[in-house]
C-alpha cells in the first residue's frame, strides 16, 4: 500500500499539517493500520525531496508538526497517474497460506499439513464472523462497511481455497513424495 500516494491525495484539497494528515488518513481509511507520526514525517520528507510537495508557512522554532505541506503540480501529476494505473492482478502466487502448505508437505507429514489447514480455516471463520458483525452494528459508517467488505471477500475466497485444498492435500502429498 502506498502511503505516499494517500498523502498526496489528502493534500489535493489544500495544504495540511503532518498531524492533520495522520488524522485524515485514519478517518478516510478505517480499519487500515493506523499511520505512525514518524511515518508521516518520513514520507513527507521524501515527497518534498522529490518535489511532489513543498512546505509552506514554516515556523522554524516550532518543529516539524507546525509545518504545512502543499501539493506541487508535479505531485498532482503523480497522484493522477497513480489513480489511473491498473494494479497488476496478482502477478505471482504470494500467499503465505499456499507457501505454508507447500513447505509443510516438503518437511513434515500429511497430517501436519492438514492440521495447519484446519487451524487456519477456523481462524479465518472466526475473523469472518468478527468482521461481519461490524456490518450489522448500528454505529458502523458506510466507510466501515466498505472497508470490512474488502477483507470479508478475501477471507471468503481463502476459506474456499482452504476447504478445496483440504480435500486435495493427500493427492498433493503423493505428488511431492511419489
Amino acid at each position: 500500500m502506498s502511503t505516499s500516494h494517500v498523502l498526496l491525495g489528502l493534500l489535493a484539497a489544500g495544504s495540511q499539517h503532518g498531524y492533520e494528515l495522520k488524522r485524515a488518513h485514519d478517518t478516510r481509511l478505517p480499519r487500515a493500520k493506523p499511520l505512525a507520526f514518524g511515518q508521516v514525517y518520513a514520507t513527507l520528507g521524501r515527497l518534498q525531496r522529490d518535489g511532489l510537495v513543498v512546505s509552506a508557512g514554516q515556523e522554524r522554532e516550532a518543529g516539524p508538526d507546525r509545518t504545512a505541506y502543499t501539493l506541487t503540480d508535479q505531485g498532482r501529476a503523480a497522484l493522477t497517474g497513480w489513480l489511473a494505473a491498473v494494479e497488476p492482478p496478482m502477478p505471482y502466487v504470494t500467499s503465505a497460506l499456499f507457501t505454508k502448505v507447500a513447505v509443510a508437505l516438503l518437511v513434515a507429514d500429511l497430517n501436519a499439513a492438514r492440521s495447519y489447514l484446519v487451524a487456519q480455516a477456523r481462524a479465518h471463520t472466526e475473523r469472518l464472523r468478527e468482521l461481519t458483525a461490524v456490518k450489522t452494528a448500528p454505529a458502523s459508517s458506510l466507510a466501515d462497511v466498505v472497508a470490512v467488505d474488502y477483507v470479508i471477500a478475501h477471507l471468503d475466497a481463502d476459506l474456499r481455497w482452504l476447504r478445496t485444498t483440504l480435500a486435495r492435500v493427500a493427492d498433493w502429498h503423493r505428488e511431492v513424495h511419489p
Partner: protein
Amino acid sequence: MSGLQAHGVVRSYGPTPALRGVSLDVAEGEIVAVTGPSGCGKSTLLHCLAGILRPDVGEVHWRGERIDTWPEAARSRLRRTEFGVLFQFGQLVPELTAAENVALPLLLAGTGRRGAGRAAREWLDRLGVAHLADVRPGAMSGGQQQRCATARALVTGPRVLFADEPTGALDTLGGEEVLTRLVHLAREQGTTIVLVTHEPRIAAYADREVMLRDGVVDPTGLGLDEPLVPVAGPGAVAR
C-alpha cells in the same frame, strides 16, 4: 428449559434418510447458522424445528414443551405466533401489494385492518422499502421482494425466525442488504434465528455455525473424512 432443542431427530422421505439423529440446542436470542453441502438435511432439520415436518424418531422442544407431538392445528398456530418462516423465494402473494402482503399474517391472527396496515408500513420502513408499500411483487426486484417477505416474517413479532437460504436467489449485494437488516433487527428485538445456508459468508452473520453432513452434525465443522490426529508442536500435547 428455555430456547429450542432437537433431540436425536431422525427423518426419512420414504426410503431416503434425510436426518440420521440430529441434536441441537438453540438459546433464545441466539443466531445459529445450519450449514453443509446440498442434500445434507438442512431444510429437513429446519422444517422439523419449525413444526412443519414431524420427525420419525426424536423430539423437538420449545420453551420446555415438546411440540413435535402437537396436532397440526396447534403447530400451525405456533407458526402464526411465536415462530416465523422465511424461504429462499419470498413467496409473496402476487395479487397483493407489499403492504397487503405484510399485513396478511396480522389479519389472519385477528388484528384489525387499520392496525395491521399501520404495522405493515412500519415494518416495510424498517426493511428500507417503505416506498414500495403500494407496489405488487411483480414490479419489484428479487432483493426488494425478499425485504418485503422479511417484513412479513417479522411483523407478528416471532420469537424464532426460521430462514431457509433467504439470500439464495439474490445477487451478492441484494443478499447482503437483506441479511444485514434482518440480523440488525433480530438483535434489536432479541429474536432467535435459525439460518440455513451453504455459504460461509452468509453463515458468518450468525453467532455460531452447526454443520450437517449426510444427515448428522459434522463434529469437525469442515467436512473432514477422518478426524485429525493431533500434532505435537507449540501448544499441542505430545503423547
